C-alpha cells in the first residue's frame, strides 16, 4: 500500500503545484526552471520509494504512475472541466495588435516574449498580429491578420 499511496499523493501534489505555478514556468525552460525540474525528483525520490530499492517496488510505482496518467488523460478528454482544471485555458495576451496587460501580468509574460513570438511567426510588430495566445503548454502562438501566402513569399531565384 505504501508505494501506491505515496505515488498518488506526490502525483497530485506536483499536479496542483505546477498548476499554481502557471503556464509560463515550464513552457520554456529558462535556467531557473531547469534547476527546479532537476530538484523536484531529488526531493521526492525518498518519499516515493522509501528504503525499498527492489525492482518489484519500482514496477509497482511505475504502474501506479502510468495508471494515474492514463486515468487523468481519460478524464481530461471525457470531461472538459477536468481538462481545464488540470491544464488551464489558453490566455489571449495580444488582441488585434494591442497587448492585454491584465493577462500578461497574471501569466507573467513580458513584451519581449511576445515580440520573440511575433518574430518567430515572421511578423515585425504587434500591429500585424490578430491574436497572440499563451497556450496551456506555455507556448505563445501568434495568429496574423492574414495567413501569409507561401507562394508569394517564396523566392527560388538564386542569390546573385
Amino acid at each position, binding site marked *: *500500500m*505504501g*508505494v*501506491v*499511496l505515496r505515488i498518488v499523493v506526490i502525483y497530485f501534489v506536483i499536479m496542483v503545484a505546477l498548476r499554481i505555478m502557471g503556464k509560463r514556468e515550464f513552457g520554456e525552460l529558462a535556467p531557473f526552471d531547469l534547476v527546479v525540474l532537476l530538484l523536484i525528483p531529488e526531493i521526492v525520490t525518498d518519499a516515493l520509494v522509501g*528504503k*525499498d*530499492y*527492489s*525492482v*518489484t*517496488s519500482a*514496477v*509497482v510505482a511505475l*504502474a*501506479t504512475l*502510468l*495508471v494515474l496518467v*492514463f486515468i487523468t488523460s*481519460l478524464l481530461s*478528454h*471525457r*470531461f*472538459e472541466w477536468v481538462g481545464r482544471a488540470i491544464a488551464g485555458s*489558453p490566455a*489571449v495576451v495580444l*488582441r*488585434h*495588435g*494591442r497587448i492585454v496587460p491584465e493577462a500578461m501580468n497574471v501569466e507573467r509574460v513580458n513584451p519581449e516574449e511576445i515580440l520573440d513570438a511575433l518574430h518567430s511567426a515572421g511578423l515585425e510588430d*504587434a*500591429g*500585424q*498580429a*490578430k*491574436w497572440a*495566445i499563451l497556450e496551456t503548454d506555455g507556448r505563445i502562438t501568434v*495568429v496574423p*491578420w*492574414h495567413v501569409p501566402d507561401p507562394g508569394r513569399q517564396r523566392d527560388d531565384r538564386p542569390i546573385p
Partner: protein
Amino acid sequence: MSAQRPGPAAPPPPPLLVRRVSAHPGQWVGLAGLVAIVAAGAAGFLSHSVTSARGQAPSFEVVVEYPHRLGHASRGVIAIEIHNRTDRGLAGVMVRIDPEYLDRFVEVAATPAFSRPFTIPLPPIPAGGVIRARVDARADRIWRASGRVVVTAARETVSLEVRTLILP
C-alpha cells in the same frame, strides 16, 4: 496593415466534439494489467510484510517475528522473544538459525552477537522474565528463504519454521 480592424473579442472556440472514453483494445488490456499490479501493490502483496511464529516448551515460550516478504536489497529483522514460564531462573538459553535460511541474506548481524555461525547465546532469564535477541540482515538472493529458528534451554527445544519471500 492596420491593427484597428473590427473583429471578434476572442479567438474562435475549438470545434465541438462528442466526448467519449475510448481507447484501442490493446490499451485496455495493458491498463488492466497495470491496474492489477497497482491493486496487488495496494493490497500489500508486493511489499514488505512481517509475520510471526509462536511455540512453547514446558519451561518457556518463544515468539519469532520475521519478514514474510522482503524486497531485494532491503533490510529485514528477525526478532526472537523468549518468555520464562517457570518460577525459577532459566539458564543456558541458545538461539540457532538455520544457515540455509540466512544464506539468502548478507550483512547478517545479531544482538547479542553470534558465538559461532548463526548461534546466539543468551544470558539467564529470571523467573517470569523475557529476553530478546535480534538478527538484522539484508536480503540478497531472490526467491524463497526457509529454515528453522531453534531455541534450546533447560534441555528443552522449540523449533519454529520461518519462510521469507525475497522479491526481485
